[in-house]
C-alpha cells in the first residue's frame, strides 16, 4: 500500500487534525494566560473578528455570491456556502424569530471540537467562540451589524451546538471626513 493512501487530495484543504489541534493549542494558551473564562471568550471572539473581516474577501472572491436582499438569504449563504467552504460542514438554519431578524445555526458536528472534552470547572468557556467572531466580522464587512452568541454546546452536555445570530442594524456607507 502506498504511503499516500487515505490522504486528502484536494489542494485547498488542510489536514483536519492539524487545524483542530492548532486551534486547541490556541485555546489552551488563552486559558493559561487569562484567569476567567469570560476573558478567554472575549479574546477568542476578538481573534475571530480579525479573521472574519479578512475571510469575507476570500469568500466573496471564490464563491461569487452577490449582495443579499434579506436576512433569510444571508442565513442560507452562511450555512450552505460559507460553513461548507471553510469547515466542510453545513449547519441547519432554524428557530427564526417572528420578526425575521434572528436565527439559529445548529451544528451537528463541530470540527473545532473533535478531540475536546471540557472539564467541569470550565463551564463558562465557549470553546468554539472564535466562530462567533468570524461571523460577526464577516457580516460587518458587508455592512451588517449582528450579535452572535452560543446558546447551546455539545461540549457542555447540550444535545446540539447552537449559535444564535441576531440582526441589529444596517451599517451605512461612511462619508470620509471633509467630503460631502
Amino acid at each position, binding site marked *: *500500500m502506498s*504511503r*499516500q*493512501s*487515505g*490522504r*486528502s487530495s*484536494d*489542494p*485547498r*484543504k*488542510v*489536514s*483536519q*487534525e*492539524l*487545524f*483542530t*489541534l*492548532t*486551534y*486547541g*493549542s*490556541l485555546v489552551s*494558551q*488563552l486559558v493559561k*494566560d487569562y484567569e476567567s473564562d469570560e476573558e478567554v471568550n472575549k*479574546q477568542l471572539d476578538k*481573534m475571530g473578528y*480579525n*479573521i472574519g473581516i*479578512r*475571510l469575507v474577501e*476570500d469568500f466573496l472572491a471564490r464563491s461569487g455570491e452577490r449582495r443579499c436582499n434579506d436576512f433569510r438569504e444571508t442565513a442560507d449563504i452562511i450555512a450552505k456556502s460559507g460553513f461548507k*467552504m*471553510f*469547515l*466542510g460542514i453545513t449547519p441547519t438554519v432554524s428557530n427564526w424569530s417572528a420578526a425575521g431578524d434572528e436565527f439559529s445555526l445548529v451544528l451537528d458536528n463541530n*470540527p473545532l471540537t473533535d478531540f475536546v472534552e471540557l472539564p467541569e470547572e470550565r463551564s463558562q468557556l465557549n470553546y468554539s467562540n472564535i466562530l462567533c467572531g468570524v461571523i460577526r466580522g464577516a457580516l460587518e464587512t458587508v455592512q451588517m451589524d449582528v450579535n452572535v452568541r452560543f446558546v447551546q454546546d455539545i461540549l457542555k452536555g447540550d444535545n446540539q451546538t447552537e449559535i444564535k445570530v441576531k440582526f441589529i442594524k444596517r451599517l451605512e456607507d461612511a462619508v470620509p471626513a471633509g467630503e460631502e
Partner: protein
Amino acid sequence: MADDVLFELLHMEIVAYVENSAKKDEKDQLVAKLEKMGYRVGQSVAERFTRDTPRFSSELDIIKFICKDFWTNVCKKQIDNLRTNHQGVYVLQDNKFRFLVQMSASKQYLEAAPKYLAYTCGLVRGALANLGLNCIVTAEVSTMPACKFQIMIQRS
C-alpha cells in the same frame, strides 16, 4: 475538512496574539512560546500522520518522512532540498514556504519573518520527538519566501 485560508488566518492570529500578549520585558520569549505551541501539536499530528505507514528503519527514513508526507500535510508540498552532514545535522530547504508566500518576494518584511516560522519549527520538533528523535529545530530566511530549517539531532 477545513480550508487552507482559514488555517493561514488562524496562524496569523495566533502569532499576533502571542506577540501582543507578551509583556515588554519578554519580547524575546515570543518565538519560544510559539515554538512550544507547535511542539504539542506536532507530537499529536505525528501519530495521526503515521497511522498507516510501516515502521521507520533509520533516522534518515524519519527525516524523509518529514520532508515528504509531513510537509505535504502541513504545507501542501514537499521539501525542495534536503542536505545532511551525516552526523545528525539536516538542512531542509523550502523555496516557497507557505506562511511567507503571501508576504513578500524580496527582503521586505524580512525582520518579521522569524515569528512566522516558529510555530512550524515546533511542529517539526514535536513530530520528531514523537518518532524518537530529540532535536533542536531552527529556521532561517535570507530571501522570502524561501527558508531553511535546520534539524540538529541531540544524542545522549
